Structure formats: C-alpha cells, structure tokens
C-alpha cells in the first residue's frame, strides 16, 4: 500500500470528522470574530492598527515569543537528553522535579517569583540580594522560559521515547564517532519533529500569554498585544474598545499564521522518518561518571533557583497570616486554607477536575485524529489551523465561542468544554504528531495478517510505542485545563461555576494568601495521584521488561 496514498473509507471518515470538528472549534469562531471586525468596524480597523503604542506592543509580543522559544527549547531539550541517561544519579527524582513548574498555576506564578526575588522577598531578606529586573521585560522573559521548559522537555522526552534508536547510536560510537557527533547526527536528528513541535507550541503559547506580562511587565511599562486586549476590555465597555480588542486578537492570529504555517509546510514533511519495525534496545552507552555528576549538579542548581525557591515562597505564603510579615512558624496559620476550602469551592473544584479530565481525554483523541489526517496532502494544513485558536488569548476565544454558540449554550459546561477543546487542541496534537510517524507499519500489518482484529492490532502494536506521547499529551491538556481561569470565568453560568470563579473570589482585594493556599491544594491534587500512578506504572514496566533488553521508551518518561 503506498503510504498516505489510496484513501480507505476509514481514512475518509477520519478526514470528515476532523473537518467537522475543525469547523466547530476553529473556523466558525474565528470567522465570527472577523465578521465583527468587518461589520462593526466600518474602516475603524485602520485606526486600531495605527493607534499609538500598538507598534511597540506588537514588537514586544513577537520579540518576547521568539526570545522565550529560543531559550526554552534548548533548556527543555537538554533536560530531555540528560534525563534519558539511566546512569544519571537520582534520575527518577529529577524526572519528576523538572515537571514541577507545570503544577503551579499561571495565576500565582508571577507572585511567587516576586515573593522569592523582588525587593523585600526571600533572597533580599536572607542575603540582601534582590533583582529589580524581575519587574520588567527580562523578568517576564525568564519566568516564561522557566515555565515553558518543562513543556519542551515533556514533548521532546516522549518524542525520544518513541523515536530514539539506541542501536544506531551504539553503532556510531563503535565506529568511532564522538559523543557530540552522535548527538548531532543521530539523537537530535531523530528528535527534530518533537523539537519543532515543542518550538511551535512555545512560540504560539507565548504570543497569547497574558498573566505573567501583566503582573511582571506592568511596572516597567512593558506592554504586549494581550495586555492591550485586557485594557480594552476593562475600560469603558463601549463598542469601540471591544472592536479594538477583537481586532488585536485577530492580529495575533495573523502573526501566528505568518509564523506557523510556513514552518509546518516546510518542516513537517521533511522531518518525518520511518522506523524499522524492530528497533529497540538499551539506551545509549554509559558516559564517564564525572560528566553525569556535573549534569546532575547543573540540573540541581537550575531547579533550585527556578523551581524550589519560588515554590517555597508560594508554600510559605499559603500558611503565613498576611503579606509582609516574616514567614516564621509563629506567624503560621491554616486560615487561608479554611477560607478557600468551603463546600462551594470543593464543588467547583470537582467540576473543574471532571471537565479537565473529559477535555484531556477528548483532546487526545482529537489530537491523534489530526496526526493521522495530516499525513495526507489534503489534511496537511490541519495542524497549522488548529494552532490558531491556541494563540487567541482566553478572553477573546471565549468571546468568539460565546458569539458563535451563545444563543444555545450560554452559561453551560458544554460551552466551557468547547473552549478548552478549541484552546488546547494543538497542545494535544503536537506531542502525538511528534511520535506518530514512528509507528511501525509492518508490525501492524503482520498483526492483522496473523489474524488479530483491528482493535487488538492497534492496542498491542500501535498504542504501545505511542503510550508515552498519549499520556504526555493528556497530562499537558489536563493541567492546562485545570488551571484555566479566563475563559471559564467569562463563560460560566448558574450551576457551572468552575475553579476560575473560586480563584477570582480568592484573589479579591489583592490578598495573596488564599490564592496561594488554593494553588497548593491544586498542586497536591495533581501531584498525589501522579505519584501513585507513577509508582504503579514503574512497577508494571520493570516487571514486563526483563533484562537484558530495557525498552528505551516507557511511561516513566512523563513521570
């Protein structure tokens, strides 16, 4: 069968399904936004584009997105490569630790950093060291990089799990290639689809990011397109500012189109490589112990500064009675926890957990579907298209969906679910796509020929190498949906209050203690089950994979 050639009925229906969902989640809402600009705009679009300060904001946005991508991708890739080594001291611990920033919600991230490093923060109190630049473009950049790096790590790690060819690497080493050459010509070359997937995600995500630029950028007068959109929606409430907000959001979409579509069109087909069906084996050859130790030390230092300190600041804030009092045991209290853990909160939290779980599960299916469809010529643009709703700031995407489906769905959980699906589709798709082209076709065919049913063949042959990618995608989608505030705070109605409502209630009056407590609860809610799951999967894995062949992949990669 020619690859990607003759359309089977199943393939055709997959394409139809993707197109239908694409229309509902991406095309119609975007067209609705465009229609508003077209109809209400009346030539005002030019005035919006020419308004003072927009040029600066647009430039800030693009420079920030590029800067964050350029820094976060190498860091994430380095982490993935270092953590691949089985002889890294304390590897299991590190694999969990690098993912910790992901469990801290956006809405407290900026605060936890100022509490750690700004004037009167942790380092200032203990060592007399504070970093004024944190409240400015550099601070925004750094915090976004630190927050994006785990995402890159996750995507690249699951990509490597599915794609790595340890035998090839060993062969190269035996034939005399140095470790740098092996890294460059084999390991990195094979992980390129995952790396580019991660880069696109980080870039687009940063274009549309809002919370960090708002909190850390404002004191330095650093504005981005998203902070301007927020200002437009906040002041006045007249049709003119609304129009400006929608126009700016579409501008972001255009920037995303201009950057992502060529990347997808050019790189997509070139990065794919097919894998021999039986490629397996131990991960690469052991390195000198000193190198491993240095790697572990570097990782420890990085994580201490970027994760441990801000997290500790957050944790202490959640138990300290008030802002600005020393976080010593004498001032500790559980008041904040008592305040946020009301029956109403628990109900909203439960709703959010359920919604995030459903969204993540549907998204993994949808993401996989796109990954299947895009290998055909007709479906190639799909990947770029679903990225367009990721770039929209939450507020504008919610407005678009409300305008499109509000007549029927206003205030329902379904509309919030649609918003999550639209926002996170690319999040689910890219990690899966980064691994899917490595599915061994011959094995599948062999399974079918030997009498296995279609489902059995997929379950036993296709899902196994894909499992890390699917689980990784699910995890990213679940956490992001769980932490989402803007969209659900705009879309909820009676009986569909989500976590967002609780967050905004607790944020009131600038009191950070209750919000910090809520974040700690959220983090525990995620970390607890994840630890259990991890232990169970780890045990399963070690029982199944007997020596001498330890699979390169495996669930543990997404820890």
């Amino acid at each position: 069968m020619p690859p990607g050639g003759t359309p089977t009925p199943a393939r055709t229906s997959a394409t139809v399904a993707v197109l239908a969902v694409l229309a509902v989640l991406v095309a119609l809402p975007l067209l609705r936004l465009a229609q508003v600009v077209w109809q209400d705009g009346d030539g005002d679009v030019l005035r919006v584009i020419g308004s003072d300060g927009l040029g600066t904001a647009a430039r800030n946005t693009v420079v920030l997105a590029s800067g964050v991508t350029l820094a976060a991708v190498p860091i994430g890739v380095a982490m993935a490569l270092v953590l691949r080594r089985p002889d890294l001291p304390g590897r299991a611990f590190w694999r969990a630790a690098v993912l910790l920033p992901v469990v801290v919600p956006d809405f407290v991230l900026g605060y936890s950093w100022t509490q750690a490093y700004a004037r009167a923060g942790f380092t200032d109190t203990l060592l007399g060291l504070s970093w004024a630049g944190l409240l400015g473009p550099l601070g925004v950049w750094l915090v976004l990089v630190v927050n994006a790096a785990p995402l890159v790590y996750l995507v690249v790690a699951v990509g490597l799990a599915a794609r790595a060819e340890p035998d090839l690497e060993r062969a190269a080493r035996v034939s005399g290639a140095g470790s740098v050459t092996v890294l460059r010509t084999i390991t990195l070359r094979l992980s390129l689809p995952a790396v580019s997937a991660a880069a696109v995600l980080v870039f687009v995500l940063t274009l549309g990011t809002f919370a960090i630029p708002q909190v850390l950028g404002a004191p330095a007068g650093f504005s981005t397109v998203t902070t301007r959109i927020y200002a437009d929606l906040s002041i006045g409430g007249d049709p003119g500012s609304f129009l400006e907000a929608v126009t700016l959001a579409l501008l972001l979409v255009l920037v995303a189109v201009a950057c992502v579509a060529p990347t997808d069109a050019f790189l997509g087909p070139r990065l794919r490589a097919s894998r021999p069906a039986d490629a397996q084996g131990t991960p690469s050859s052991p390195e000198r112990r000193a190198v491993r130790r240095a790697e572990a030390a570097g990782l420890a230092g990085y994580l201490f500064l970027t994760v441990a300190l801000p997290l500790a600041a957050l944790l202490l804030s959640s138990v300290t009675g008030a802002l600005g009092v020393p976080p010593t045991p004498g001032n500790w209290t559980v008041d904040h926890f008592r305040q946020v853990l009301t029956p109403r909160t628990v109900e909203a939290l439960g709703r959010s957990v359920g919604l995030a779980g459903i969204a993540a599960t549907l998204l993994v299916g949808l993401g996989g579907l796109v990954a299947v469809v895009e290998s055909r010529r007709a479906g190639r643009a799909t990947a770029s298209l679903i990225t367009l709703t990721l770039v929209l700031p939450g507020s504008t995407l919610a407005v678009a969906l409300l305008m499109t489906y509000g007549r029927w769905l206003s205030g329902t959980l379904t509309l919030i679910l649609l918003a999550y699906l639209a926002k996170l589709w690319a999040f689910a798709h890219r990690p899966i796509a980064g691994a899917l082209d490595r599915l061994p076709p011959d094995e599948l065919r062999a399974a079918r020929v030997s009498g296995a049913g279609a489902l059995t063949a997929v379950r036993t042959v296709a899902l196994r190498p894909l499992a890390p990618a699917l689980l990784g995608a699910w995890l990213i989608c679940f956490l992001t949906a769980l932490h989402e505030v803007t969209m659900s705070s705009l879309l909820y109605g009676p009986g569909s209050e989500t976590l967002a409502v609780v967050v905004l209630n607790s944020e009131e009056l600038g009191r950070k203690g209750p919000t910090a407590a809520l974040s700690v609860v959220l983090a525990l809610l995620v970390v607890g089950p994840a630890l259990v799951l991890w232990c169970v999967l780890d045990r399963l894995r070690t029982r199944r994979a007997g020596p001498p062949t330890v699979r390169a992949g495996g669930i543990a990669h997404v820890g």
Partner: protein
Amino acid sequence: MTTGSVGQPAGSRSRSLALAAVGVLSLAACGGVNGDAAPSQTVTLYTCVSDDTIQPVIQAFEKGRPGSRIDLFRAPTGELNARVAADVRSGGLRADVVWGCDPLTVQALVDQGLVGGWTPPDSDAIPGEYRTDDYVGAAVLYMVAVHRTDVPAPRTWSDLTGPGYTDAVAVPDPSVAASALGALGWFAEDPDYGVRFYADLRSNGAVQVSTPDDVTTGVAQGIYAAGLTTANSAYAAKGDGSPVDVVWPDPGAVAIYGPVALATSSADSQAAQDFIAFVVGDDGQRVLGKAGSYPTRPGVAGPALPEGAPIVSPDWATIRKDQEAILSDYRQVFGG
C-alpha cells in the same frame, strides 16, 4: 508516511468521536432552550462587586421574597464587559440587572441602549453625585493611600511626590482599572493637581502597576512603601496583619461609585425592579454595609471610614468626554 495501515481503527474511532460531539452539542442545545423560558421570578444579575458583598445581598433578597431567584454572573470588569459584548452579538443581553463597579462602564451600556431608563422611586435618598436618570449608585469604592508602617503617613496626596517616598510609590494603571481612571480624572481636573501630579510622582521614582489590588499586594509585600489603592483592599491587608496603614489624604479620597441599572429588555420585569429597589433601599444597603462594601445611602453603617475623612467625587461626564485626551496626557508621563 506510515500511517496508512492504522486507517481502519482510527476511522472507526473518529466516527464515534464525531457522533459524541454531535450528541453533546444537541444535548446542550436543549439545555439552552430551558434557560430562555425562565419564569419571571428569576432575575439574571451581571456584576463585578466582590463575592463577599454580593452573596449576602442576594441571600437577603431571596429570603425576603420567597419564590424569587437571582442567577448570578460575577466577574471582574474586563470579563464582564466581554460577556456583555458577546451577549449583544448572540441574541441580546442576557442580564436583567447590571451592577457595575464604576459609572463609565455602566454609562457605556446606557449609550448602547442596553440598560437604563428606570431608577427606583426613592432614589432621591441617594446623593446626587451617585446617580443619574438611568442608574443609581449602590456601593462606593474609595481611592485612598496605603503605606508601610515604617514610613511616615502621607497627609496630602502631594506628599507622595516628596523625598520621603522616593522610588517607593505604586499607582494603578488607569487604562486597566476604571477606579484608577476615576482618580486620574479627578486629579487631572483639579487645578492644584492636574496631570502634573503624576509627572511629579514619576520623577520621584513612582511605578505604575496593573490594578489597585496589585498596588496593595506590592506595598504589603514590601516592594513599595506607599501607593494609591482602594480602601477595601488596603483595610483588608491591614486586617490580615500586614505592616500597612491606610490614609484618607487631603484634599480627599476619590469616590468611585458602582451603579446598578435595569436592562432595557427587562424593563417590565417586576422582580428585577424589586431587586434594584432592594439593593439601594435601607435593608439592602445595611446588608451590603455589613458585608464590607461602602453604602451610598447616607446614614447606613459601612466598613471603616475615619471620622471626618475628606472625600471628593470626580465629574464622570467630563471624564467620559475627555477620556482619550486625559489618558493620552497621562501616557506622556507613564508610557505604556
């Protein structure tokens, strides 16, 4: 290139997914229809006032009027505006009552013909600067000075431009928070202050942050020594035990009132009118005052307000007219 052979199973999965999507959509569509046919006893309220205030007010209203129900949508002003704008473009405003946090937002809705045209019969009891023919102020935010206890308390607003507060003052962004815009509007129109006040603050090293709540957070944390914020937020920080104090500086704390207005599409809704009358009436105002908001009705007890504290009110009509010019002058100072 290798995915051809997984076509079969993926296809069947996709069919069930598509079916599921259709199912979810149609289910939800049915749910929506029910919402439209709501009984007249149910009032949909859009507001940005704090949860601590709105919950007791709603409870008191529902208790005093058995059978009535308030469906609440509460969100910060930005989200509230976005929701209203989206409502208007998908079948019309779904709120019967809008309770905003500043007159600019509500006036914009009046100008679009979405709310207004009715106020409760006894609105006269509310001071004239807190109402128009289209809406009545139900609560007031006061913009006051918050300062660390280890710096001297500012006596007047202009003290903040002095040497005691160099590189240590935070102000909220008037292009993000309407309360900050109200304060800017008052300063800009006052002959003794003017936009020059902000220029002096700036040259004294003052910093602009996003919202009044961010000012309070920054001052309480110790990043700044003093700032311009809402009384509610400053007193909350002080009440928690943060080392801050609150000052109502001369010539006065700037009053920003939050108006409540009837939607034009619900003009004949008795329940909605009753709710508004309750909120600005004696009983509602008492509940609101006890819950921590400043009532507009004279003589009703509210949260902390020092005896004889000076209060000034911006001229909202002028601010609305000159908004662009004022903001543009301001941006010469604080950029952004």
